[in-house]
C-alpha cells in the first residue's frame, strides 16, 4: 500500500467553544488528485490552512511523509507544499515574470528565462502581459500567474483553495489540464472547490460535513 504523503489523523480545530473540524482523518498520496467540497463556512479553508502548516490544530496530528508537521523546519514545509489561496501569492508591483523567478529562487529552484516563458505559456499568459505589473491584471490573470508561481517551485504537495475563482472557460480548462498532468507526474494535489469540472477530473471527491470528511463518491 502506498503511504500517504500528507496525512491528518483525529484532526480538530475549534473557534472558541465551537468545533469547526472534529476527529477528521485524511490521507493524500503522491499522484493523487483529490477535490474537497463543503458548504460555505464548513471549514474547507481552515482545513487547507491547517494542512499547509499555516495554522496550528487544536487537536490531532498532521504528518508530511509520516513526520508531524510542527516538528519539521517551516522552510522545508514551505518548499514541499505549494499553496494557492484566495490571494494569488504574488507581488502586485512586480511583473508575472519577475514573480515567477523570485519565488523559484526563494524555493531554492533555479529557473532559466526559457523555462519561465514555458511556464507562462502553459498557464496561458500572453507574452505582451508578462512584463506588466501584476496589479494591472484581472483576477483570472493573477490566478494564472499564481499557478505559474507554484509550478516554478519543486513542491510535491499542492494545496489549492478555490483556484477556479476568476478564471474563464479556457482558464479552467488549462488549470484542470495542469492539475491532471502534475498529479499523473506524482504530485499530491488537494483542491477545495465546488466546481463540477474540477470534481469530474479529480481522482477522489471528499465532502466536508459537520467537521468531518465523507467520501462523496
Amino acid at each position, binding site marked *: 500500500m502506498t503511504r500517504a504523503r500528507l496525512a491528518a489523523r483525529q484532526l480538530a480545530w475549534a473557534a472558541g467553544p465551537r468545533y469547526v473540524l472534529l476527529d477528521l482523518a485524511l490521507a493524500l498520496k503522491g499522484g493523487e488528485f483529490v477535490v474537497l467540497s463543503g458548504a460555505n463556512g464548513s471549514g474547507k479553508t481552515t482545513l487547507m490552512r491547517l494542512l499547509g*502548516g499555516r495554522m496550528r490544530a487544536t487537536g490531532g496530528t498532521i504528518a508530511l511523509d509520516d513526520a508531524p508537521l510542527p516538528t519539521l*523546519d*517551516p*522552510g*522545508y514545509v*514551505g518548499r514541499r507544499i505549494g499553496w494557492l489561496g*484566495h490571494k494569488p501569492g*504574488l507581488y502586485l*508591483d512586480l511583473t508575472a515574470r519577475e514573480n515567477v523567478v523570485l519565488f523559484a529562487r526563494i524555493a531554492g529552484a533555479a529557473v532559466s528565462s526559457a523555462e519561465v516563458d514555458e511556464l507562462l505559456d502553459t498557464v496561458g499568459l500572453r507574452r505582451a502581459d508578462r512584463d506588466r505589473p501584476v496589479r494591472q491584471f484581472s483576477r483570472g490573470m493573477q490566478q494564472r500567474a499564481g499557478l505559474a508561481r507554484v509550478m516554478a517551485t519543486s513542491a510535491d504537495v499542492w494545496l489549492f483553495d478555490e483556484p477556479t475563482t476568476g478564471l474563464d472557460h479556457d482558464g479552467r480548462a488549462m488549470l484542470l489540464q495542469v492539475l491532471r498532468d502534475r498529479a499523473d507526474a506524482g504530485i499530491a494535489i488537494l483542491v477545495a472547490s465546488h466546481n463540477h469540472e474540477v470534481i469530474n477530473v479529480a481522482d477522489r471527491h471528499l465532502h466536508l460535513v459537520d467537521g468531518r470528511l465523507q467520501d462523496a463518491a
Partner: protein
Amino acid sequence: MNGLRLAGVLFAKDLRIAARSREVIGFMVLFAILCVLVFAFGFLREGASADEFVPGVLWVTLLFSGTVGLLRLFGPEEEGGTLELVATSHAGAWPLFLAKAGLQLLFTGIVTAVVLPLTLIFFQATLQGAGALILALVLGLAGTTLVGTLCAGLLIGVRMREVLLPLVLYPTVAPLLIAGVKTTALCLSGAPIEEASTWLLLMAVFDAVFAALAPWLHGRALGI
C-alpha cells in the same frame, strides 16, 4: 541559496517595488519637511535660542517620518498574500526581516539627509561636532529601524495598527530618543565628544540587544 543571499534578493525586490511606486519614500520626505516647518512655526520666536529646539525637532521628526515608512513596510506582502510564502523560505523568516530592516534604514537615511540640513538652516543652528552626531544618528536610526521593523511585523493584519504602532514603538525606543537628543545637544554646544560617549554607548547596547532579539522575535510572531 543561503539566508544572506536570500535577504539580498528580497531587498532588491523591495527596492524595485519602491522605485516603481515611489510613494513611500516620497511621503516620508514630504512628511518630514512638513514636521520641521510645523515645529519651526511653533517654536521659533524673537529672542529664543534655536539650539534649544534643534535636537528635539530633529529626532522627533525622524521618528515620526520613520513611522510613515513602517506602516507600509509589509504592504507588498499583505496586498498579494505573499508573507507566508516568503517567511517560510528554506532559511526561515530572518532574511525577510533583514531585507525589510535594510529598506527602512535606507529610507530613514534618505530622510535624514534632507531633514538634518533643513533643520539646521531653519533654526539657524551651527554644528560643532559632526562626527558624534553622525554616529548618534546611525545608532539611533539602526535601533529605531530594528524595533520598528519588529513592531510592524508583529502588527501585520491587526486592526487599528496605525494607532497601535506608535503606541508600541515610541515607548520602546524612548532610550534611543533621549540619548539622541542629549548627544545632538552636546554636538551643537561644541562640548567635547567624550561627554557624549555614555549616551553613544547606551545606544550601541540598545542596538546590540535588538539586533540579537528582533529577527528571532519576528520569526516567532509569524509562527516560524
